């Protein structure tokens, strides 16, 4: 009995050692030479494998970054500038710091603003709903409210607000990976620079219908009236296809457009004080008055001469 046990242990041990030796030799002989920097880069990556950089995962990003001649076009939105600085240090490249971004929902068609005109009883997916028709409200551009963006977010930064029926972005969790942007069939979500201390202005509407139709569909729609474009002194707003768009690079956060918007389609967030519309309007009027006076005095001067 004891003999059998001893023999068994001995044979298994010898067999194990032999096979280990074979494995060792094979591994040595057929070793794939790999740039050790790939491992190093992968180590400093966040490891979320979200695909926000455009590659299949963190390892794929590391491989691509090591092969690339520079880091242009390679950016990890989740890790941000810190991670990219580390990657650059490992690879000996230079990297330009990028302004941190955040996902912004460009629709304010809440249940109150945008009445439901028909009932959707199909599969609860925005993609499926968009393939069938324009949606259960009169606005054919707005949020469909089935939460494909919420399902796409790996970081738990998105949630549906049951009261408004719209997705809400938790800015502290959003990594700007862009998964929600891709998931939205209506292209409502946009990545925008976070702005100084999170302050930013944006138009929360993408409705391209003409004014009356847009207004009829939704009380908070951008009606393409162009008042904001005229008000803006920084040339930051463009009106295209009956929708205003604020260029974040040019916006100086004066909030004048927000005060003047007749439908409240322009929203400012994270400002320390609530917007005092009357004060801003008074300021704009004052400026206009001064400009008019200056013009008149110019005219008079020209007449004198």
């Amino acid at each position: 009995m004891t003999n059998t046990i001893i023999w068994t242990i001995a044979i298994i041990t010898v067999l194990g050692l032999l096979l280990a030796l074979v494995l060792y030799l094979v591994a040595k002989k057929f070793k794939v030479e790999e740039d050790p920097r790939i491992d190093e880069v992968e180590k400093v990556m966040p490891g979320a494998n979200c695909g926000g950089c455009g590659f299949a995962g963190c390892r794929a990003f590391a491989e691509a970054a090591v092969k690339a001649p520079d880091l242009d076009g390679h950016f990890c939105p989740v890790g941000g500038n810190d991670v990219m600085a580390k990657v650059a240090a490992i690879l000996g490249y230079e990297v330009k710091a990028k302004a941190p971004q955040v996902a912004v929902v460009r629709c304010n068609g809440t249940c109150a603003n945008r009445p439901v005109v028909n009932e959707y009883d199909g599969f609860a997916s925005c993609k499926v709903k968009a393939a069938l028709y324009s949606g259960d409200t009169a606005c054919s551009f707005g949020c469909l409210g089935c939460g494909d963006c919420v399902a796409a977010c790996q970081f738990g930064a998105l949630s549906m607000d049951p009261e408004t029926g719209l997705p809400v972005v938790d800015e502290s969790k959003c990594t700007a990976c862009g998964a929600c942007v891709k998931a939205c069939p209506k292209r409502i979500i946009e990545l925008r620079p976070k702005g100084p201390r999170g302050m930013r202005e944006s138009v929360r509407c993408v409705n391209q219908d003409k004014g009356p139709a847009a207004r009829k569909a939704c009380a908070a729609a951008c009606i393409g009236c162009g008042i904001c474009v005229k008000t803006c002194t920084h040339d930051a707003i463009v009106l295209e296809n009956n929708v205003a768009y604020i260029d974040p690079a040019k916006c100086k956060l004066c909030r004048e457009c927000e005060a003047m918007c007749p439908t409240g389609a322009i929203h400012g967030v994270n400002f320390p004080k609530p917007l005092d519309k009357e004060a801003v309007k008074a300021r704009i009027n004052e400026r206009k008055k001064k400009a008019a006076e200056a013009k008149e005095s110019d005219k008079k001067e020209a007449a004198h001469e």
Partner: protein
Amino acid sequence: MSRSTFSIGGVHPHDNKLSRDCRIEVLPPAPTVFLAMSQHIGAPAKPVVAVGDKVKVGQVVAEPGGFVSAFIHSSVSGTVKSIGPRKDLAGNPVNCIEIAVEGDEWLEGIDTSDKLVTEIPSDNKAIIEKIRLAGVVGLGGATFPTHVKLSPPPGSKCERVIINGCECEPYLTSDYRVLLEKGEQVVVGAAILSQVMGNVPCTIAIEENKPEAIAHVSEVIAKLGYKGIEVMVMKMRYPQGSEKQLIDAVMHRQVGSGALPISVGAVVQNVGTALAVYDAVQKNKPLIDNTLSVTGECFPRQANLLVRVGTPFQYIIDFLGGMPKEAAKVISGGPMMGKAVSNLEAATLKGTSALLFLTEKQTRRAPESACIRCGKCADACPMGLEPFLLQKLSRIADTEALEANAAQDCIECGCCLYSCPAHIPLLDIIRTGKGLALGAIRARAAAAKAAAEAAKAAEAAKPSVIPSEAKESKK
């Protein structure tokens, strides 16, 4: 008579042909009509009239926007009020010409009499040109421009024309009424089609639930003395009226994935299309009206109407006594493949075949439960696909796997959804996957075309290429 049907899949919904005994009534033109520029598969048509122009019935208002496209004619006489985007039945904006109706003045040269013209012109090219100019498109649902279908690519040969009178969708009766009341015209239309395709034999396929139509059409063929045209009685089965399934049923031939029916020598045209071809060739009448069934258990006034293209749905409903209270859902087309109408202000298109009213009880979806792997959907699929697998792949948007499992071959007949005991909205989900697979195939084809053109351009630019560079350009 032999009774034939397609070889795999299919379902047997109750046919519910409630409006089968209603004679075709002529709907007077609506006060305003809206002619959409996308009434056919292919490029949208381009308007050739301006706001304020006076138009007559049958006058061209838009010309084809590409090779696969069609003319659009005014279905009424009046003044062009506006040209611009308007919401279609699904609420999506489509370019439309709005015409305010004044009187009913027809363009000269259109024969509006009831006299049957049996003499077919001998010049086939002229016939196809006439069909093109009349804006005829397939009225079976896909609205593919007919003149394109009748001009097969060189090298392919048509062996049989099939006239599709199956009307396998429940509730629909417009094709049935057309066969009964305009059987002569349809048969002459069929004769024209078979002559154009090279005097090939022609089969008019009718399902067995329409014995009156079968008897009438057989009689007409005997009376008119056409030798090459026969009636084929089909077993009742959905989706028999689908092109690939019908070819399988009639000719026992399978159309390959992504291939056209002409690849197996078949050309399929709907009954309505045959009538439109007759009108275009024999009467010079462009496609300006079509027959519509207005039906549903909750709709008190069942009807088959001859409706001018571009008539608003609301006008049709008002004409028949208004919207019934119990109606919860309005569908344009049949219950299996039709589209729910979310906007009743939308207007009919050339291919609109019915307005169907369903009650809350009929249309309410049962709650979805988990897939129990019973395989009923795979049994029901007439294309031999595996819907349970495709819906899973669609949910995770795995384009490669979707393509490998032939999601692009889905004909969206809805048999899988109809047969699913777990009430999984299979088709709704698979449709998104089909879009992904088709998108990938199209992108690849476009890339291959661009690469071939680039290579050609490079070769043309440099007549004497260095071998290494030639290799690169090939890549």
